[in-house]
């Protein structure tokens, strides 16, 4: 009796130890990022000072009060949110179709959808650029340097992921539920909205969140397909690595600012993450 409870306690202590160490490892780089962001340039090389006691506010104030930077933030917010919304809705529709209809070659379509995420992005920046500047144009208006352009481009790597995630969840919903609702006189749309959507809600939440994070964090396409109006915050971050002073302090501050919204987001929704990430693979 006592020995099992002792073992249980030991297990608990070991678990605690493990997680405390992990937490330290996880937080250390982030803490250091913060410490650097709070230092003026002359203090940077003072590594021995591990505990940050001073706070050099200009690192934060300069970007935050800069109208250009504010525009980057707003762009990032709009692009990430619109993209996540669009991707979630499309993924639900697509996976519903893939899962409930007998479409010719649906497995191949599914695989092709996924391959879209695999391309090394660098070489694809040039075709995208040409498409945006030459093909997608209406008179003077081109898709280059617009937020709608970025929203659509991010679908290329977010949609496959979302479809992958939702497909498993869709497949996991018993077909009998559809049929029961249909017998009760519901049409397809109602089945989707009333029966399917509530059941996929956790998965949908995680799809939305991960798409949002990926879109918020993307750099290469944001850098090469925008110029002034639609720039996002990650490109702003890269701008601080410049001649005459990699502005380490400011760069760290911008990195903190760029991370914060995603962080808050994570804390609010984190309980959905575990519920939604099953890929539907384990069927109950």
């Amino acid at each position, binding site marked *: 009796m006592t020995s099992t409870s002792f073992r249980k306690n030991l297990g608990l202590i070991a678990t605690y130890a493990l997680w405390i160490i992990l937490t330290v490892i996880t937080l250390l780089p982030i803490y*250091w990022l913060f410490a650097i962001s709070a230092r003026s340039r002359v203090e940077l090389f003072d590594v021995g000072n591990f505990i940050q006691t001073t706070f050099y506010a200009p690192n934060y104030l300069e970007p935050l009060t800069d109208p250009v930077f504010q525009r980057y933030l707003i762009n990032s917010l709009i692009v990430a949110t619109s993209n996540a919304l669009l991707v979630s809705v499309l993924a639900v529709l697509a996976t519903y179709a893939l899962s409930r209809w007998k479409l010719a070659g649906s497995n191949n379509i599914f695989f092709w959808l996924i391959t879209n995420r695999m391309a090394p992005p660098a070489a694809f920046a040039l075709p995208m650029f040409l498409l945006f500047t030459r093909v997608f144009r209406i008179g003077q208006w081109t898709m280059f340097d617009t937020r709608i352009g970025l929203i659509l481009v991010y679908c290329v790597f977010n949609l496959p992921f979302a479809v992958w995630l939702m497909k498993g969840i869709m497949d996991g919903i018993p077909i009998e539920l559809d049929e029961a609702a249909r017998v009760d006189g519901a049409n397809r749309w109602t089945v989707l909205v009333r029966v399917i959507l509530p059941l996929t809600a956790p998965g949908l939440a995680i799809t939305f969140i991960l798409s949002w994070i990926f879109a918020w964090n993307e750099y290469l396409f944001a850098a090469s397909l925008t110029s002034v109006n639609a720039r996002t915050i990650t490109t702003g971050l890269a701008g601080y690595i410049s001649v005459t002073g990699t502005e380490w302090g400011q760069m760290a501050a911008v990195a903190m600012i760029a991370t914060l919204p995603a962080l808050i987001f994570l804390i609010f929704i984190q309980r959905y993450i575990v519920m939604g990430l099953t890929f539907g693979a384990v069927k109950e």
Partner: protein
Amino acid sequence: MDSNRTGWGLLAPTLIILGVMGLLPFLYVLYISFFDWNVFSASGQMEWAGVNNFRRLVFDSAFLGSLGRTLLFTLLAVTSELILGFLLASTLLRDFPGKIVFRTIHALPLVIAPIAVGATWRLLTIPGFGLAPYYLDRWFDIDYNIGRYAEQAFFTTLAMDIWHWTPFVTLTMLAGLTAMPKEPQEQARVDGANRWQVLRFLTIPMMMPVIVTTVFIRMMDALRIVDEVFMLTGGGPGNATRYVGIYIWRVVFPQTDYGYGSAMSLLVLYFTIVLAWLLFVALAQVGNQQSSS
């Protein structure tokens, strides 16, 4: 017939967007991979090159070395993340006070932009004002300088990737383990199977779909890693961390060798698709076995 049309209708927006944004650029890349096109060339024109770009590619030892390094990096990163993630997820199965806090903190790196992750780790490891070199030297007398020592740089990028992506694996594993039915395991324990046997013959087979899916997703992303490593080492020292993503970036942008860069991209895409397809087939096999058993 009519209902099939509805099905295609639901799928259509996805297919159109990916067709325009994914397939079209792919076809264009395929097209220019058969041309010599370099802003800096003597002629400056786009010239038909046949398969010359690919011919050049298979003899380009620097590129093939880079591809090999990327595969090694992917293998090591994905394996470590998988093992770590599985272990961590199993400790999270039972309740203990503070679990939610730990889990949330653990998931933090997941939301940080790759480019910011690179910046964070650079600040951590840069000699001069980085934390790691300073304290490693002070406490353990280790000369840690990722600008200078190839192995250190390689393992630092590995550590960075593990730090960044293990939480993702932990969460998928946790989701899988939570959703898994408990009865077979309890039954097996009653029947006298030990912990290891339960893990080996019950948990892992049942988790296989989740594991394969996670490997699939991590593999795709690890093979095309650019931002983090670019910020951290720029691909150095020497060639140590010049993974294909960075290699292609250098060929396409500073060298403006569009044709050759496209050929490289296609080769990498080819490798990824083949690997992914094999995994996909494996996943289908696992699925069939499960449904038939």
